């Protein structure tokens, strides 16, 4: 999936954000027209694969291809001629990247943090994107980096989403550490969005293991306190557990810890390791074939589900896990990152299987095999 295109900019002096259309009948100052012949009309900008010519409007020429953009997609255009897709109208998986900064540095981070201050730029971008998003958008993820590092802008962003998209499920992925300060949990609660849910990782019941995994001292205590503060203010919570060599040894203890100390969590998800970002670098201390943690995963999942908690398994293949875990396995991988092995083609369960991350094709369980009907 392509999220970026580049061409030769003309008359683009500032960041432009608009909605793609190829229909010359439609006009409007929020619309960005794609076409080689310059139309006469009221558009925010023109995108074209043709060589430069006069349009009278801000234009990016000479773009090698624009086939990845559908009418209704939202893009940003910079003075550098780069066209970024920020919202895909035909996808259920749209993410608002709040910042690439992070106060943790997880061993298996799939999107390693960057220490530059991107917050003013990204805030301004999404402040303009959010009002353009279709009102029937089903779900929107706010991710990072660590979104709460935006500070007050984090809450302003969520307020904007709540106001503009009242029917959209909003899923914020955060390490929860900031909410150890109760006034921030309270601030979030004041937004009063019943469709808001935070996904917060807890990797162990014991601080040293969790802190090592997230590479931050004190992170475990902050996250647990944060979860309690958020729960007290009625914020809906999901707990996310990534499965790897460091988290497996205490996994069954973690399940019991969650039930005893975090029973208010609305959802607990166990997620397979993504082979991207930091993971290849740390693979020696992370890798365990998913087949080899089936016992621990089964006990953890069945314990929590048995106690009435809602449990899911993400990023896992049906053929690797015991059949009793199939009811918990979800097809969770975003469309553009989802793939299967050649062996999967003859599998009878292919349609029910979550498959693999594209980047996991080169590092996956040795036990993947087609299932017969």
């Amino acid at each position, binding site marked *: 999936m392509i999220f970026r295109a580049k061409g030769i900019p003309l008359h683009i002096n500032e960041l432009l954000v608009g909605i793609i259309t190829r229909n010359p009948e439609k006009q409007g100052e929020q619309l960005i027209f794609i076409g080689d012949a310059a139309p006469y009309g009221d558009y925010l900008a023109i995108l074209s694969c043709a060589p430069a010519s006069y349009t009278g409007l801000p234009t990016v020429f000479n773009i090698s291809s624009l086939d990845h953009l559908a009418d209704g997609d939202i893009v940003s255009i910079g003075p550098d001629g780069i066209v970024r897709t920020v919202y895909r109208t035909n996808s259920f998986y749209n993410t608002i990247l709040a910042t690439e900064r992070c106060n943790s540095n997880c061993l298996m981070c799939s999107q390693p943090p960057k220490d530059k201050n991107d917050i003013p730029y990204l805030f301004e971008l999404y402040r303009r994107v959010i009002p353009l998003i279709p009102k029937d958008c089903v779900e929107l993820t706010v991710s990072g980096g660590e979104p709460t590092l935006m500070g007050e802008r984090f809450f302003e962003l969520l307020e904007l989403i709540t106001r503009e998209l009242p029917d959209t499920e909003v899923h914020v992925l955060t390490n929860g550490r900031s909410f150890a300060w109760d006034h921030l949990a309270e601030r979030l609660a004041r937004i009063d969005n019943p469709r808001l849910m935070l996904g917060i990782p807890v990797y162990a019941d014991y601080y040293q293991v969790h802190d*090592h995994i997230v590479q931050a001292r004190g992170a475990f205590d902050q996250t647990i306190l944060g979860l309690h503060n958020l729960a007290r203010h009625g914020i809906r919570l999901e707990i996310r557990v990534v499965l790897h060599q460091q988290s497996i040894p205490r996994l069954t203890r973690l399940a019991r810890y969650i039930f005893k100390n975090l029973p208010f969590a609305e959802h607990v998800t166990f997620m397979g390791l993504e082979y991207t970002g930091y993971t290849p670098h740390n693979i020696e201390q992370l890798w365990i074939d998913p087949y080899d943690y089936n016992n621990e995963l089964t006990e953890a999942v069945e314990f929590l589900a048995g*106690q009435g908690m809602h449990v899911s398994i993400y990023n896992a293949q049906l053929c690797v896990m015991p059949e009793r875990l199939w009811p918990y396995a979800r097809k969770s991988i975003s469309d553009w990152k989802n793939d299967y092995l050649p062996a999967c083609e003859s599998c009878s369960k292919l349609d029910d299987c979550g498959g693999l991350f594209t980047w996991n094709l080169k590092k996956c369980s040795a036990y993947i095999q087609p299932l017969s009907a």
Partner: protein
Amino acid sequence: MVETLIQRNTRKFKAPDFYAGSGNVYFLLPFRFHRLNDRKEVLVNEVGDHLVVPTGTAARIVQRKLRREDEAELYGDLIAGFFIAEQQLPPLIDVLATRYRTKKSFLDQFTSLHLFVITLRCEHTCHYCQVSRVTSNKDEFDMRYEHINKGIDLMLRSPGEYLTMEFQGGEALLAFDKIVYAIERTKPLALEKGKQMTYVICTNLAVLDEDVLAYCQANNVLLSTSLDGPGFIHNQNRRRPGNNSYELTIKGIEMARQWLGPGNLSALMTTTNLSLDHPLAIVDEYFQQGFRSIFLRPISPYGFALKNEKKNKYEIERFITFYKTALQHILNYNRDGEFFREEYATIILKKILTPFPVGYVDLNSPAGSITNAILFNYDGAVYASDESRMLAESGDYTFRLGHLDTHDYEAVFYGEKAQELADVMVNEALPGCSECAFQSYCGADPVHNHATQGSVWGYRPTSTFCQKNMELIRYLIELMDSDPQVKQIFEGWVSQRRAS
């Protein structure tokens, strides 16, 4: 906004040791311990989480002989489980506080169970019953309308939103007209005060008829009956003319299930001397009659075992043996894939395995008397519990809190008598209980103490309440520790789930 981003020069990964606390100093959080068997002991923290460890571990923890480097897993378990902390004031102390508050939150609702002894009349002459009368004298042995009215008024003063009104006897159905009167009077008043009512009739089902069932069906009234086991035990225990109590009960159970659905009828058994020899037959009888739970209720201390310590000890040991045999038999049903649970174990297991409050009247601290349950007797007297009024029938009025004619809500629930009792209702503050590992799984029972030992404080070394609960709790933990399958089954009982 607190700036939580740490300025760092490098994002180079660090080894696990970097994230461990410094040094080997640790502090003790409140926890207690108990020997499970020759090899193991159990540690229990302040909110009831337990950890089974090798014998001698508690001593080593206290003597600061534990070293993280040598026993990383145990050390992690102790930190994660709120047994020790590396700071004098642990960072997650507020989580512990929330857990504690949650465990005790059964107190928030205050009195929920309201027992109305609607009549003392009965057509049975069960040999373990100390209260009922075979008589047709309604004036003397039925609850009078003005007492019913006043009882309802006191009940609706409870701060709780969910209230249970339970009709007892005698045989409650002999005064069915008064039950109907009481429910009909309560309905509009409860609606007005925003109370959610549950109505229960305790009955031996012998005089059950379709009029009663039709009313129960229309008004969501639950039935609670007695089934002591197979016919030869039940009829021996529960005498009535014609010696057909068992047959009538079974017929009544079938009828009640047809009318009300299987979930709206429950049965209780009472263990007698005869029962003690037949644990398997009693369990089988419950299973065959379609019950998927059984409550193995101990011998009542108010009958044959009263104030005789030597005999009590013997009897309670017999009961414990009976209980264990029955429990193993029940576990076998579960091993065969059936869901079938023992209710007393389930109550204790909920306290051991879940973070939630368990409001079982006979196993609470503060005790369930008054704080959870109150009893209005047929003659208008108010008692702290069902057992309290049984004592009163033998002339002991220690737990009489007042009378509906003379005492208002404040005088009953906050009066001198209630305050006296409150002193001995908290096992955290009772000698022998205050340092007990099983404190948070157990409760205080001043009525039992008084009845069996002549002191509301009680004396733990010879207390049958203590002997029974200590051993049963120890046994349940030992079973879970020694057999993962049992642990799974028990976790299923706690959550109403069939073990896979």
